[in-house]
């Protein structure tokens, strides 16, 4: 059973065993507008919870992508680098950003459930 959680920085994280897949939420893409550039972390690098792990840029501005948990980056999604518009099309499935081997599963506890995130997103964008 995989577990999906959400961060206040509008990332989603899906945990399967020790492997976490991370991307940005549909709500985030709607706020950003058309995404035209994506930069991902280096494979094999270590990222720390709440640290910068990438960048997305829309026609309007650049935004950092943060990692909601710590770990070692095991894979990155070249598809979204080659065609950043895929992030707008399918942000919560095929347009994931990177995978990592999670360091401390308890870091998942502070993240939001889907219901909590939806409420948070609605309140912060109002």
């Amino acid at each position: 059973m995989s577990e999906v959680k959400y961060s206040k920085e509008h990332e989603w994280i899906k945990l399967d065993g020790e492997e976490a897949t991370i991307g940005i939420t549909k709500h985030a893409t709607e706020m950003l507008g058309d995404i035209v550039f994506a930069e991902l972390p280096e494979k094999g690098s270590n990222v720390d919870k709440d640290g910068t792990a990438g960048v997305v840029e829309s026609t309007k501005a650049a935004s950092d992508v943060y990692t909601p948990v710590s770990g070692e980056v095991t894979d990155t999604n070249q598809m979204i680098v080659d065609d950043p518009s895929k992030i707008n099309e399918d942000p919560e499935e095929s347009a994931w950003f990177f995978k990592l081997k999670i360091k401390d599963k308890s870091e998942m506890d502070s993240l939001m459930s889907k219901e909590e995130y939806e409420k948070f997103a609605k309140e912060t964008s109002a």
Partner: protein
Amino acid sequence: MSIKKTSLNNLHIKYGAKLVEFAGYQMPIQYKDGIIQEHKYTRSHSGIFDVSHMGQLFISGSDDLTSDLEKIFPADLKKLKTNQSKYSFLMNNKGGIQDDLIITKTSDGFLIILNAACKYNDYKVIKSKLDNQYKLNLDESLSLIALQGPEAKNVLNKVIPGCDSLKFMNGNNYVYNNEKVYITRSGYTGEDGFEISIKHSDAETFVENLIENGSKLIGLGARDTLRMEAGLCLYGNDLDNDTSPIEANLKWAIPKSRIETEFVGSEVLKNQFQSGVKKLRVGIKPDSKVIARGNTKIYNDKNQEIGKVTSGTFGPSVEHPIAMGYVDNSYSTVNTKIFLEVRGKKIPANICNLPFYKKNYVKGEINV
């Protein structure tokens, strides 16, 4: 100060605009289609832009008005025929640009289109430099709507017949809904197009008529990517009080006949014409997909800072990042290798010709 709304505010909301504050006005940054689709629709068909926040300053008075305005603006106003327009500047004594503007000669004087963020100050400055005998009217009873794109002439001609005979940078009076409208053939997207000055009460139905004929509302976001691809400056980003028209690479807008004459800032400009300038506005094309935004520092290959980016984005029609900025004049030659500091990394780029996107009147041609 409360935020102002244009006469098209309800229409913006009806068509799903994301509204932002711009120069004291609530303006649409984009509609439902998003910036890229809106940009491309303008290039392939036509787009409607609410530019009612811009100033429409009417000046009238005696026959001396033309020569008195030439003491302010470096344009050849004496040669201007009625209904003809010129791009010009309001400068300070140091030759810095206080605003860039379009002056049109009207039947009883001049109409000057001013940037929204500058218009009240421009009015004060111009009024202070003119004799009291002249009448200045920063007319806030009029909306201003731009229609841009290859289909603009066909769409507008269906709503206001006859306007397709206007020549570029020329205007005339037309009638819409039994009221006078003033139309010029001009714009700021690199496309053929028109700007229509119309009573507030007619603006909404006029825009609905344009939409019925196939055009779409376009937000400020796409207006920005369109003007950048066309190599056009945005006041406040690419032009400011410390930058002269020569430095901004807008020398073409200062006619030779005016160089030896007097106007505000003429001494500095004359000097710059003779001795050259230290910095120059250039086009910049990054080698990679990285976007360099305004304020990005520019370096040479010896890691010395040589300038600053003033505008940068992803160009939807050229499908590549584009930028413009100011570099030390010795690095301004096309194809000079430069480096842009983005998020701590030095990104290789080249100085390139402007515009990035050049319209071919048969079909669009891309110049990257």
